[in-house]
């Protein structure tokens, strides 16, 4: 039997970590789908119809799984974190409600038109639905991040006693909801989503390009995969350098607003100046893995790098160490290593972007088998980096659920028993494992089936098989 606090936290972590994959896929795919639809309608070239239809299949399946896992998250605030919901709800609930009405509704209704309606509606409405679906996914992110950013940087509220409990009351909506943290989160998250999807698309396309050009295996629809690869590389070139650039600015903002989290990200215990940034750090022992301390880390560091990052250009700047903060510390090891790996991946993606761009420029994109292998291996790493980034954000805020206002342990539902919480945690572990397996299975089937054949495209679209099984299958 797990303690209800621990079980609730593990369950929320598990359900969020699984759920976030699907919004990343839908937000990242959205701009590509808008582009494919536009090109398909404007040019009528078969490859764009193939691109649109193939990636719409992937989008639709991801959206279904994203919906069912997303409802779980919304309900868990109430079921497992009732004390948090009661306290923060008068300020925190609003953005979630608006998210549903403004964003999720837009996305879910127009998705019906977008996925099922190509033959039912005209070009203009079809194009509008593509844009509406994409806009919906991005608007969703705005409201969810407005809510989350307030937990990182609570402003514009006062504490009031109501029905015998201390609750948060909104006093300044602009301060609370147009939080400076929100802008960093939004830019970093949206760019990361497009980058992650670019990586996944590039890795998948690289596999078929590799099979065809390097291995000389016959591959159907080679032109489709070549175009996918090129478009994905464009996406990667646009997003990867930017991600590192604003990641740097974002880290500085974290230092200014959540110094305890920043100290955990850098494993700085004692306040110090001229703190190095370990770009590459190796755990040399089990202790340094589980309890990393910047002073004792074995790695390649930039002298003064962390000070430079925190202060915005001054390598001599002082960084406040964890020892300056009273009470329990965030789990430093998780935050430190997640941050390191995320940053390293960010730089690796920049390398990949320029490498691919260079090969393309030289006309050798389809011949460089090492690049193909690197892209294949990196296909899931964008999503992985997003997960790590969120772990830094959320674990780094501990022990607080609302920074400086409410401890996570105080936010859990008071009436919740260990047995109940353990039962649902175990249930989710099983169900979500199954869910991910099925999702993977469906994606593999879609990829193996490949894009629709030319015979199936718009010109030959009336299926003689009456109610038949999936023109899109």
């Amino acid at each position, binding site marked *: 039997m797990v303690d209800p606090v621990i079980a609730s936290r593990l369950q929320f972590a598990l359900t969020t970590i699984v759920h976030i994959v699907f919004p990343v896929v839908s937000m990242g795919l959205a701009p590509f789908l808008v582009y494919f639809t536009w090109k398909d309608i404007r040019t009528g070239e078969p490859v764009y119809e193939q691109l649109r239809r193939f990636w719409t299949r992937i989008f639709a*399946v991801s*959206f*279904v799984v994203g*919906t*069912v*896992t997303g*409802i779980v998250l*919304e*309900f868990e*605030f*109430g*079921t497992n*974190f*009732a004390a948090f*919901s*009661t306290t923060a*709800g*008068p300020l925190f*609930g*609003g953005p*979630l*409600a*608006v998210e*549903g*009405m403004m964003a*999720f*509704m*837009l996305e*879910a*209704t*127009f998705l*019906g*038109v977008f996925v*099922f*309606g190509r033959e*039912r509606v005209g070009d203009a*409405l079809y194009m509008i639905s593509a844009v509406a679906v994409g806009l919906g996914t991005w608007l969703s992110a705005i409201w969810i991040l407005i809510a989350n950013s307030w937990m990182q940087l609570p402003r514009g509220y006062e504490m*009031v006693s109501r*029905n015998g409990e201390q609750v948060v009351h*909104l*006093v*300044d909506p602009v301060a609370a909801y147009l939080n400076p943290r929100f802008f960093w989160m939004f830019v970093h998250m949206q760019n990361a989503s497009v980058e992650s999807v670019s990586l996944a698309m590039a890795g998948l396309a690289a596999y078929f390009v590799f099979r065809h050009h390097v291995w000389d295996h016959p591959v159907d629809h080679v032109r489709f995969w070549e175009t996918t690869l090129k478009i994905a590389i464009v996406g990667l070139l646009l997003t990867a350098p930017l991600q590192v650039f604003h990641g740097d600015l974002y880290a500085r903002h974290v230092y200014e607003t959540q110094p305890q989290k920043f100290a955990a990200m850098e494993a700085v215990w004692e306040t110090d100046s001229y703190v190095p940034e370990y770009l590459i750090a190796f755990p040399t022992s089990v202790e340094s893995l589980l309890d990393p301390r910047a002073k004792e880390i074995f790695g390649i560091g930039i002298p003064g790098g962390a000070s430079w990052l925190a202060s915005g250009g001054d390598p001599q700047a002082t960084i406040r160490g964890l020892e300056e903060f009273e009470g329990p510390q965030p789990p430093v090891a998780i935050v430190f290593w997640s941050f390191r790996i995320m940053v390293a991946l960010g730089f690796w993606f920049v390398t990949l972007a320029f490498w691919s761009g260079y090969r393309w420029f030289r006309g050798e994109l389809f011949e460089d088998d090492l690049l193909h292998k690197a892209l294949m291996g990196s296909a899931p790493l964008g999503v992985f980096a997003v997960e790590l980034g969120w772990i830094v954000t959320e674990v780094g805020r501990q022990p607080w659920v609302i920074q400086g206002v409410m401890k996570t342990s105080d936010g859990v*539902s008071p*009436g*919740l028993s260990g047995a109940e919480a353990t*039962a*649902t945690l175990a*249930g989710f572990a099983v*169900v979500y494992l199954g*869910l991910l397996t*099925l999702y993977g*299975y*469906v994606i593999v089937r879609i990829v193996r089936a490949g894009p629709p054949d030319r015979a199936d495209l718009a010109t030959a679209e009336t*299926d003689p098989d*009456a*109610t038949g*099984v999936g*023109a*899109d*299958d």
Partner: protein
Amino acid sequence: MTSVETLSSGPLFGLPLPDLWFGLIFVIFGTFLFLDGFDFGVGVLFATREDAEEREQFLAAIGPFWDGNEVWLVVFGGALFAAFPSVYANLFSRQYLLMFAILGALILRGLAPEMYEQRHDERWQRWWGRAFVGGSLATPLFLGMFTANWLLGSTTLVTLPGVLVGLTVVALTVVDGVAFLRLKTRGDVRADLQSDGYRALAAYLVLVVLSLVGIYLVAPGLRATMRSPLVLGLVVLTLAFAAVYALTTHRDRYYLAFVAAAGLVFGLVAVVATLLHPSIDPAAGLTVEAAVVPTLMLNLMSIGAALLLPLVAVYFVVLYSAFSGPIEAGESY
């Protein structure tokens, strides 16, 4: 800021916003129950059909709609959280295991059609078909139990009146599902559904009476309200909608039958809301006035809802008119 001060000083236009939000929450819940209700009903009816092509048509009928329909549940949760956060917290944590049963059933129901379409071997489709039916049955059953526990302030998750209300909601979704499927199919499939409609309606009427009797017996505090003209009027209205449903189903007036089904759903939800008001969480002794968020937040949410919900209505009109009429040959899930 003056605008913030104005918004904090009193309700917009002096409107009774707490009660309006109480009403809005139930309108949203009713919309969910009507729209996703026919998805559930289609899932239950799916169990009664053997023919592969007929089953395929049932899935194709809900394909473009169900995701949008289900968002009403998300909006219900969000609106309750935004306007009555302590009620949202109490209600969901008190009915902890029931909430996760609802979520599990929704996952099954949402996933099953997608999986069903993946492969066409018999065993695979048999099992995913069962998952679809199971999820479609369990969701309204558990939602009904949740609603009954809410109304009765019950801390026990499974009670006799709760199960009765749950079964009532299941029957109602089938009534709804039949009306929807008769709009979306043709020929024999459509004709065969007529008798399902009568049976579901009869089951609903019997169950709703049993539920009301059960509630009357276990909740003495509600008896006065149950005898009030408003509730009696709603019961009469429900009977009128039931008569319209039976008649229009008999005469093949598909749209009117669908409207009557909507009337039945909103009638039931209105009864629940009327019995609950002015309390909003009987188990915690919270009234609408005590649970509602402060004026500033309520005003902001009201502006948001007033601007956004009409837009949402437009989205649904676009979606439902794009896919109006029976499914065409070649359309599938």
